[in-house]
């Protein structure tokens, strides 16, 4: 369907190509890949691997934003779930660790969804609560320390490989396919878009808008939990202070670059993930270029501005008005 390879993705694909080209100039060996111990290495693989947490977050975030909401708490949820996974890793098996971490993410999502859908709080305020409190909860879990572990199962989740690809990349791809199948395979996609496009009208058409809203926050929590587990597995430890810090903003950015409006409605899962990859490609390119990483923030800001300008009706309106004006003058 339209979500899988949308016609409107051309701008994003072009942007990715341009940034990749710039990266190639900055770092001539950018496209080099080599196989070592049955696993691929190279800058492109790094981009995919490093981009995984934001890509996972954006999968949940894009659904939340499609309902005209926002979830600021995903970074904190990552920290909580990473802390839980790290604390249990050496004493429990991987299934138990995953169940506990994902369960915690689900509970966090339920909490956000309850505040927004049932109590009717504004999403930005409702999720701000968990954004602030969540990091405290994570610190309580780790008792203020950086919890390390050595469970090979969990380490594999962050550093292993499947079919020559890093495990996190495979997981993200799997989640993209799973989310796409659930959302577009059922009526969920249409009903979410309707809810975000006009909640009052959808409600009157018999759509269970509350259930829609609740479910997207829950899914967003689960995605954040998975991202948190992978982030912890990657560094073989949980740092409650820094895990997932500011990543909610990158996730929102990825969704916006992917063309989903913050006013809700139409969304595209693939383009949101593409947005996450665009961000990571920029990050990696700047790191490789040898410029100080501070540049990263500036470049990101410029890209955001460009994307938002292109989406703004006023900007396209100006262009439309300017054209006939020029004609009358001529």
């Amino acid at each position, binding site marked *: 369907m339209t979500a899988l390879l949308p016609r409107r993705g051309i701008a994003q694909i072009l942007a990715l190509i341009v940034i990749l080209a710039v990266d190639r100039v900055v770092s001539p060996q950018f496209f080099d890949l080599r196989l070592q111990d049955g696993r691929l290495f190279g800058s492109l693989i790094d981009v995919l691997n490093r981009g995984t947490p934001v890509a996972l977050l954006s999968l949940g975030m894009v659904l939340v934003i499609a309902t005209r909401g926002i979830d600021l708490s995903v970074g904190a949820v990552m920290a909580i779930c990473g802390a839980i996974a790290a604390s249990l890793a050496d004493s429990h098996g991987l299934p138990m660790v995953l169940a506990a971490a994902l369960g915690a993410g689900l509970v966090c999502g339920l909490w956000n969804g309850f505040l927004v859908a049932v109590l009717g709080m504004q999403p930005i305020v409702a999720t701000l609560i968990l954004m602030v409190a969540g990091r405290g909860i994570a610190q309580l879990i780790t008792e203020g320390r950086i919890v390390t572990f050595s469970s090979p199962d969990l380490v594999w989740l962050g550093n292993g490989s499947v079919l020559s690809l890093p495990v996190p990349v495979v997981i993200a791809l799997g989640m993209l396919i799973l989310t796409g199948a659930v959302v577009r395979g059922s009526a969920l996609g249409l009903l979410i878009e309707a809810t975000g496009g006009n909640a009052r*009208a959808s409600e009157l058409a018999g759509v269970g808008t509350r259930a829609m809203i609740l479910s997207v926050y829950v899914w967003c929590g689960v995605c954040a939990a998975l991202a948190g587990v992978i982030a912890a597995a990657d560094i073989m430890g949980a740092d409650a202070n820094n895990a997932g810090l500011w990543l909610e903003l990158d996730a929102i950015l990825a969704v916006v670059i992917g063309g989903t409006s913050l006013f809700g409605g139409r969304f595209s899962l693939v383009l949101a993930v593409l947005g996450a990859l665009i961000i990571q490609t920029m990050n990696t390119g700047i790191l490789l270029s040898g410029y100080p990483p501070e540049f990263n923030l500036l470049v990101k800001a410029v890209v955001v501005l460009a994307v938002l300008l292109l989406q703004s009706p006023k900007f396209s309106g100006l262009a439309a008005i300017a054209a006939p004006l020029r004609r009358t003058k001529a």
Partner: protein
Amino acid sequence: MENSLDPALPLLEVRGISKSFGAVRALQEVDFTLRAGEIHALLGENGAGKSTLIKVVTGVFPRDAGTVRLGGEEVAPRSAKAALQAGIATVYQEVNLLPNLSVAQNLFLDRQPMRFAIVREGEMRRRAKALLADFGLDIDVAAPLGNYSVAVQHVTAIARAVDLSARVLILDEPTASLDRHEVEILFGIMRKLAGRGIGIVFVSHFLDQVYEISDRITVLRNGRLVGERETVSLPRLELIRMMLGRELAETTSARAATREHQAREVCASFESYGKAGYVAPFNLELRHGEVVGLAGLLGSGRTETARLVFGAERADRGQARVGGAPVRLQSPRDGVRHGFGYCPEERKTDGIVAELSVRENIVLALQAKRGLHRPLSRREQDEIARRYVKMLDIRPPDPERPVGLLSGGNQQKVLLARWLATSPRLLVLDEPTRGIDVGAHAEIIRLIRELCDNGLSLLVISSELDEIVTYSDRVVVLRDRAHIEELAGEAIDVGNILVAIAADGAAPAHGAHA
């Protein structure tokens, strides 16, 4: 204000105006002449070019060709503000004032009386009070404008425009959200202003009002001028012919042939159904193959009744039954599950999902009814959309077009299609013909009759009594949020409904808080 104008000289002369948007020619060499002190109706179907003409004259859109003369002098305003300074003021249907500011602040926005850089609030209020008194309005000018009814907001906008020394006042659908009483007040003000020599352009699709208030009529069709006539010498049928460009059978005010009264099966019934502070408890029986009309002034409880019946609002007393079995209607979902459908009055905010396609809007209710796990395949969706686009003649016939780009009449048809797709037993239509052009209007009414003949039960709200009389088998009259009378058969006519509404003298004085 200039009184030295030669009355023979036109106040506003628009000549040969053309305007294109891309390939679409919205206006082609349109002339329009407004005399001082006249009320001039500007009429045409949706898309005829009325709004474009107004916007070109007031400088909102640049024009491609043509001239505008005001009092003999050529003017070419480049913005609405410049037009206002030149003496051409426009009051749009959606009042462009600030509801959070006080009435006085709205009246004197941008030109507050000042002393040493401080606004003289007292002085401003005193002048605001005096200004509104001139319009027969005695209200607290310190209260936020948003606290008042749409009628008061309109009068405030007009007062502001006139006080800014307007010589030409353009009113774009000023009566669309006013009730009968408020329309009378507005007309009084219009006549008074015309008496002072102001030229008034009145855009409306209420033909009764046009005949009541206007001196002359200009009709546009497809961006061209059709003609300009004196109102008194233009019969209604001729006017409609000018607007539509074809003969229209005189069906609308003649009551459809009385259909034989047969015992029809009850579809849904409501006993002592009501909600405190919303609508007084009422009894209502809706039968298959029958249209029940709800008549009353704005704010009389029509929409409230509709929302209770559908389940959009929860009743706190009484019993609803569907096919004889008691049911609870707690939410729209309940209504939909019992086979009800509801086309709300506010199409844009409560009806369509503008960004989604015609197809998605049509299948929305059916999909919601089926549930998440039983998605309609794309093929089924296409099939349903194609069927209804054809059946209801939705234009343009492109199911993938975002519904927000369709005209009002076609959006209404999309909403009808949305509910018809759910095979409902009862449809509640709230002002199904509001803001719709004449052609689509007749079509919607024909559809209502057809649906009813197919056994559907319909509950229809309309402010146009002629319309209600045409299609209703029974009419429930409301006043002050209570059902006061039910008319059936021969008793249904406009006169009887009016008598019922006005039964105990004064109509409710409080404004439109619907």
